[in-house]
């Protein structure tokens, strides 16, 4: 197999595990709420997805449980920041701590057990495209759903009325209120739905990729997802590019080593994070400022 194909085959599942929480965070931030609890929602999704799958033997019930667990984390954050007007950053971190603690206690007995991960489904025709066919179109179902979700969310926020209300809530909640809608409800729903997607990201990690649970298995990928949204200028296609770019950088290290190529390992390990920082800086310097207006202060683009 060629090296491009190998890197993509290795990278795509991990990229998707970042794309889900990033798309969720995009919905939440478009509604005006930053959710740093994304990492926690991924952990909750990963554990509940794994626990339900191993208990019931049905991986789809597991994914459903991951959605609900992610949504529950989001609902807690939304209650704190939308209803009780708590600080968004503080509340998000607390949700993460809580999820980290609870999952490591409840998950203790699941460490080391395994389930069969989601099967890869080759798509006839597309999977035989040279170089990239196998990498892109012989993956599990959650990967394909992620492919569709990107244009779907773009269409939703750009061309539908609920999407318009969501964006307006992120910009000027008072206008939405004057227009006869409830911005509080919109934000509550946006945060909860966004967090549910983070739960799916956790399920992709635990059930789609590895088929097991281990403590703190998200290793900070939920925070990367939050960074990806800013990097992507709150655009779903940008989010997809960011998530895939990060995933590819993560995979490069393994693939290059497996080829026996001598290269500085520590540079490779730092690559995904270095690329994220550089892109963030470059995009911020030259990009149009399209952060949701109600978030501009929090995201502190000093002008």
């Amino acid at each position, binding site marked *: *197999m060629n090296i491009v194909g*190998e890197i993509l*085959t*290795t*990278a795509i*599942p*991990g990229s998707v*595990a970042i794309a889900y929480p990033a798309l969720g965070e995009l919905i939440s931030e478009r509604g005006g709420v930053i959710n740093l609890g994304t990492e926690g929602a991924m952990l909750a999704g990963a554990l509940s997805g794994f626990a339900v799958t191993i208990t019931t033997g049905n991986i789809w019930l597991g994914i459903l449980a991951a959605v609900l667990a992610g949504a529950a984390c989001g609902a807690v954050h939304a209650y704190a920041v939308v209803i009780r007007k708590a600080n968004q950053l503080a509340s998000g*971190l607390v949700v*993460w*701590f809580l999820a*980290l*603690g609870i999952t*490591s206690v409840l*998950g*203790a*007995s*699941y*460490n*080391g*057990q*395994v389930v*069969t*991960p989601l099967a890869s489904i080759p798509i006839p025709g597309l999977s035989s495209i040279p170089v990239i066919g196998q990498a892109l179109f012989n993956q599990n179902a959650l990967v394909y759903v992620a492919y569709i979700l990107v244009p779907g969310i773009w269409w939703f926020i750009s061309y539908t009325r609920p999407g318009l209300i969501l964006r307006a809530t992120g910009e000027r909640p008072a206008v939405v209120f004057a227009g006869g809608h409830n911005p509080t409800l919109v934000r509550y729903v946006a945060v909860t739905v966004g967090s549910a997607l983070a739960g799916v990201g956790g399920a992709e*990690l635990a059930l789609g*990729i*590895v*088929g*097991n649970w*281990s*403590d703190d*298995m998200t*290793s*900070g*990928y939920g*925070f990367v997802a939050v960074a990806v949204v800013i990097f992507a200028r709150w655009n779903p296609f940008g989010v997809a590019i960011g998530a895939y770019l990060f995933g590819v950088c*993560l*995979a490069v290290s*393994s*693939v290059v*080593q*497996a*080829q*026996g190529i*001598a290269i*500085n*390992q*520590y540079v490779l*390990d730092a690559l995904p994070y270095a690329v994220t920082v550089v892109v963030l800086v470059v995009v911020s310097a030259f990009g149009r400022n399209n952060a949701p207006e109600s978030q501009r202060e929090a995201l502190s683009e000093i002008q």
Partner: protein
Amino acid sequence: MRKAKKFAIGALAIATVLTLAACSTSGTGAKTASAKVTTVGFIMVGSTQDAGYNEAVADGAKAVQKDLGTSVKVITADQIPENNSVTQTMQAMVNQGASIIFATSYGYFNYALAFAKSHPKVTVLHQGGYLTGTFPKNFGTYWGQAYDPVGLGGMAAGGVTKSNKLGFIYAFPISQTIANIDAFELGAQKVNPDAKTYVVNTSSWCDPLKQKQAVSALLGQGIDVFSQHQDCQSTVIQAVKTAGKKVVGYHYDAKALYPAGWLTGSAWNWSAIYEKIIGAVQKGTFAGGPYNADWIGSISTGDNPLQLASFGTSVPADLKAKILTEKAALGKPGSSIFTGPIYCQDGSVLVAAGKVATYADTNSFSCLVKGVVGTLPKS
């Protein structure tokens, strides 16, 4: 972010300590009833059910309680991070009456040594230790010589591979890991001179995503037998199972996860050494004895806590026989898989002809042997 995480882990640790402290008040009644009971504490860095390093410790602790019966009371604490919380946990155990504490993670070393110095009545043992110089009278370290059993696992891998390509997934290029990779390749060469070992590191003792990516990348190179030096091994075993390839385990006998593809592995069996150390403390012979030092068990001395795991169903009988013959040969005093001549990848001599590397020699190994494909990360 890292700081925040440490805070979270610290908060968890404090909660654990509080729980332990709560136990102590309820346990005082039992303690006065029988004065001869020795309370023994075990502290683990990870989950007691990780099918890896920590589960092996937990199993050892359980065996101690079962074998020594009412003469000991075993208390355990798991998921204690390698920071100040280990000191708090040791103190909580002492408050519960513990007179012997086993600190079982590599990174506990400095905390364990400091605690021993400040608590002369408590005997503190560190698993995996590396103290040079004089030991306090109440402190000892113990470990098993890992590379010989790993070499036997390498023989199984070398005998079964069809592509002659083996994969080894490791965490960090520490000397212990380098010795394991070298031993694995040397073992494979004993039965298959063409076997090559491809190495990939994950820069983490347990990051499932990185482990899975490592397996995926190695599969791309045609590797058909995998081994590893990681704390948790479920991800690699599961990924190898999905791909229909073979696996050699480490730390724990996880044959049950994949009986058809599990070849063998190395598994810790700690109870014997735990019991010997506890016995020495009870008899008052610990100070100045073999455990009041840097104790290393090995196959050649017949007391290696790291043992050859059970064989899977796909290991042919003649290969099994070869491995067991080699194991018997390693049992002779002074023998080791690192018997010269052994050459590094660049052709330089690692172990000279006719020489046998000692455990201390292997601790300074810094090169991969001929037959290993890939390089160690250099800073």
